[in-house]
C-alpha cells in the first residue's frame, strides 16, 4: 500500500512540476531553454 501511495505521489508531483513549467513557458517568463 505504501508503494502504491508513493507511486501516486510521484505521478502527482510530476504532473504539478510539468504543468507549472508549461505555465511559466506559456506566460512568457521562460522564453528559451537550450539543449
Amino acid at each position, binding site marked *: 500500500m505504501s508503494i502504491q501511495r508513493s*507511486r*501516486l505521489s510521484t505521478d*502527482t508531483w*510530476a504532473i504539478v512540476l510539468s504543468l507549472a513549467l508549461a505555465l511559466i513557458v*506559456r506566460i512568457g517568463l521562460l*522564453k*528559451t531553454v537550450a539543449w
Partner: protein
Amino acid sequence: MSTAAPLPDLRTEYPPHAPGADPKEPSTLLGLLPGIALLAVVGYAGKFVEHFINTYGKAHHLVLPNIEYVLWAILFGVLIANTIGLPRIFRAGVATYEFWLKAGIILLGARFILGDILKLGGISLILVFIAFAFSLTFMTWLGRIFHLGPQLTTLLAVGSSVCGVSAIIATQGAIDADEEDSSTAIAAILALGAISLFTFPLIGHLLHMSDHAYGLWAGLAVDNTAEATAAGALYSDAAGKFAVLAKTCRNALIGFVVLGYAIQWARKGLASRTATSQLDNKATFLWKKFPKFVLGFLFISLLATLGSSPNPTLAALGFNKAQLLTLGNLSRWAFLLTFAGVGLRTNLKDLFKQGARPFIVGAVGEVAIAAITLLLVLGADHFYHL
C-alpha cells in the same frame, strides 16, 4: 516458492527510497538535492563527452562513431555505482530519477499532436495486444517447463509483457506473491533491461530501421519505462520520442492486466481476502492502477495541438512554436537526469543474484518477445509506413 537467496530491495523506481536505503526513511527536499545534483553532473558529463567527440572528430577530419550522450550517462552512472559506490547522502536524490522520467514524458507531450498519438498509439495498442497475448502464453509455458512457482511465473510474464517493475509491483498485491518472488522477478527484468540497452540499438542499426519503427519496437519490447526511453534515445532523438509513446500505451494497460489476474486468482480461490475485497469496485481498482502521468502527457499534447489550429481563438489557447521548442528541451533535460539515474541505480552484483532459472526464463522469454514484436513492427511499417 523458493528458488534463490533473499535479495535486497531493488524497487528503486519508487522514490523516496534508494538502492539499499530504508523505504520508510523520510526524505526532505534538502536531502534530495545532493542526489539530484549528482544526476545532473553525470548526465551533463555524458552530453559533454558526446559533444567533445563530435567536435574533435570534425576538427581532425576523423570519422568517429556518434555515440549518444545517453550511453555515456548510463556508463558513467554504472561505473560510479559499481566502483566507488553511491554514498548515502546521494541515494534519496538519485532515486528521484523515476520522477524526472515522468516529468520528461509529460513535457514530451509538447512534441506530439493528438493526431499522431491517435495514429501511432492506435497501432501501438493493436501490437501491444498481440505481443501481450503471445508473451503471457509463452512465459507461462516457460515457467512450467523450468518448474518455477505460479506466482513467480505470473510476475515474470506480467513484467515482460506489460511494463516491467511497475507491473510486477502492481500484480504482486493482486496475486499475493511473496517479497522474494517479487524481488526475483524485478531483478530478472532489470538485468534484462540493462542488456537490451546495448542490444536493441545494434539490431536496429543492423536492420536499418527507421526512427519510427525502431522507436515503436523499443517501446513495445523493452520492459521498464526508463530503459525503453533510453533504448529509444540511444538510437536517435526521434526514436526516443516514439519509444516513449509506445511504452506509454503499454503502461496505460497495466490496470486491466492486473485486474484480469486478480479476478483469475480470486476465482481459483488462491487470493487472500484482502486481495479479493479490492475487486468489489472494479472501476476504482482500474483508476488506482492507472498511471496518472499519462493524463498530463495528453493534456500538454492537447495544448500543442490547439497551438497549431487554424482557428485563431483555439490557437491562442495553445502553445506557439517557440514555446513547444522550449518545452521539448525541458523534456530532454528531465530525461538526461533519468538516464544518469538508470546507470547510478544499476548494481551489477544484485542484478545477477537472483539465480539462474528465473533469469533463463526471463531471458528466453524476452528474446522471443523481442523477435515477435520486431516482426510485428516491421510488418506494420511495411503496411502502414510508420
